[in-house]
């Protein structure tokens, strides 16, 4: 591929636990992607705006507070609303299995739960990015 895959790693909501987001961001960078990390406390609007500004292929979100049913679908809608139809949107964090089908139905391509090796996220992105 000529163009490197561009990823926005984002922390929607108010939770300050970004160990996972930072570890994933670094692992994606080490895998050869271009990575932008938003920092904490981003609203869905800010994330969608950043995704567009940075012209990313992937938005990877992390939430550990339990606010994912509310915030993940909102980000999907806003990103799609900006015309980014092909942008791959994935999520991770402390997310119960039973929430995952609804998140996928809302357009989250995959959900990565605690204990996932970073290599699995890299592979998923490579296999699914458009």
């Amino acid at each position, binding site marked *: 591929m000529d163009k490197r895959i561009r990823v926005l790693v984002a922390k929607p*909501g*108010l*939770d*300050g*636990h*970004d*160990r996972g987001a*930072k*570890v994933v*961001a*670094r*692992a994606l*960078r080490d895998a050869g992607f271009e*990575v932008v*990390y938003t*920092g*904490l*406390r981003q*609203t869905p609007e800010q994330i969608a705006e950043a995704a567009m500004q940075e012209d990313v292929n992937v938005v990877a979100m992390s939430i550990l*507070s*339990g*606010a994912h*049913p*509310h*915030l993940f679908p909102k980000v999907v809608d806003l990103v799609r609303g900006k015309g980014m139809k092909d942008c791959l949107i994935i999520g991770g964090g*402390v997310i*119960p*299995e*039973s929430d995952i089908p609804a998140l996928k139905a809302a357009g989250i391509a995959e959900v990565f*739960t*605690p*204990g996932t*090796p*970073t*290599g699995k996220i890299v592979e998923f992105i490579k296999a699914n990015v458009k």
Partner: protein
Amino acid sequence: MSNEKIQAELEKYEANVAKALAKFPERKNIPEQRLYTPLDIQGDDYADEISFPGVYPYTRGVQPTMYRGRFWTMRMYAGFSTAEESNKRYRYLIESGATGLSCAFDLPTQIGYDSDDPISEGEVGKVGVAIDSLADMEVLFDKIDLGKVSTSMTINAPASVLLAMYIAVGEKQGVPADQLKGTIQNDILKEYAARGTYIFPPRPSMRLITNIFAYCSKNVPKWNTISISGYHIREAGSTAAQEIAFTIADGIAYCEAAIKAGLDVDSFAGRLSFFWNAHNNVLEEVAKFRASRRIWAKVMKERFHAQKAKSMMLRFHTQTAGSMLTAQQPNNNIVRVALQTAAAVMGGTQSLHTNSRDEALALPTAEAVMIALRTQQIVAYESGLADVIDPLAGSYYVEAMTDRIEKEAMEYIQKIDDMGGAVDAIEKGYIQKEIQDSAYKWQMDVESGAKTIVGVNKFQIEEEPPKGLLRVDASVGEKQKAKLHEMKAKRDNAAVQKTLADLKAACADENENLMPYILNAVRTYATLGEICGVMRQVFGEYEAHVSL
């Protein structure tokens, strides 16, 4: 045996080892040297470095009898949904034998927003209880006698407001402020470095903290005014030595700020407390707890010239490591927590929260919390670990590691001093970067197999998704909003506006102590969001700069 004799015997032993290794190679990736002997601790002077429990430098513990008099406080961190729900959980814990309360607040509360603020959407009541005003706080402590219980509150940026609410609930119950016992976390520096629930920039934040020190030393003398926390630094990925180094550096910064504000070190230092993580490596953790006491004692005596013994004692709360819980085979977490509990107890903690087995998946159920509390009770009553003080003292390994962690931590503290102190080191991103590097190394070690996590990268099984997890009712946000609007319609809004205007004027005058103004506002049922809003207007907000 003389050192020469030991050295000679050690050489014979090493020759045997060489032979054994030729036949039986050792496991890879063992971080420690093979064996410790008296040679590893020959520099230690018993009186100067180890000494006795309750005696400087407190390596062996802060009290002369430790758990032979009274066990540590079994304090379970809890809170979710509404004040009504959390009040029920607190009363359940007290009935089950918990000896102190520990309040978890939801994220809007921790960041100073009301439940009806648009930014709070989706977060209300999720990771803790939602508190908008004194009205919620009254419900939270309904039928709990504040004169009897000690309460720890995990609250930082708006700690002054929640403490004021607690004082006001005490007033309503007829318990005077000087009888209240508890702790506010109130440690903003680790929020910038690791935990993320900051509001204001460092300078006004440090002012709020010193205002609390000064106010409580006169009015709430039994209150621990800060819990200087390494817990979250460790959770964010630091090593054991980094945990205590960065935290003690933060402690130094608080002392310097308070002294600069005109306080005498002995007027506040005795109410400083610490908060450590109990991680997986049992003996390393014990050494860490011991090293932290020795470092703090020396810092307070030699650097700040404290006179009172109490000022030199590092008293600490411990929580078992949340980040070490696995979502896979969650029952295994019960065993991890038991070992971490053993470490905390052998390390001489003053209070302990034990995590529940299901916390890598969700907030804990009441049943899971019961097992976690029972774990503490089994260690206390059945294991014998609480019968003898500092039982690992004199172990060649533990003493050598205590020395090593102290040395490593002091090197970090020196480096931070050279940068101008903890505030500068955080503003430069140095502490954050060190933590991130350790977190990344940990993850890579797990992924390469250099580190084994049972059930995660070894001994995996096919599992059914876990059942019976606690769910916070999705309607809690709406309920909380309705309660807030009802309360606002009933209160004396002119009185609210007057106290908020007074607070705003006081914020602008650096010589004012803000606590009395905040307390006045709280008493009129001004909301947390309104009070923090006024402070935001004057102080501005902190903007983090992240580098990966």
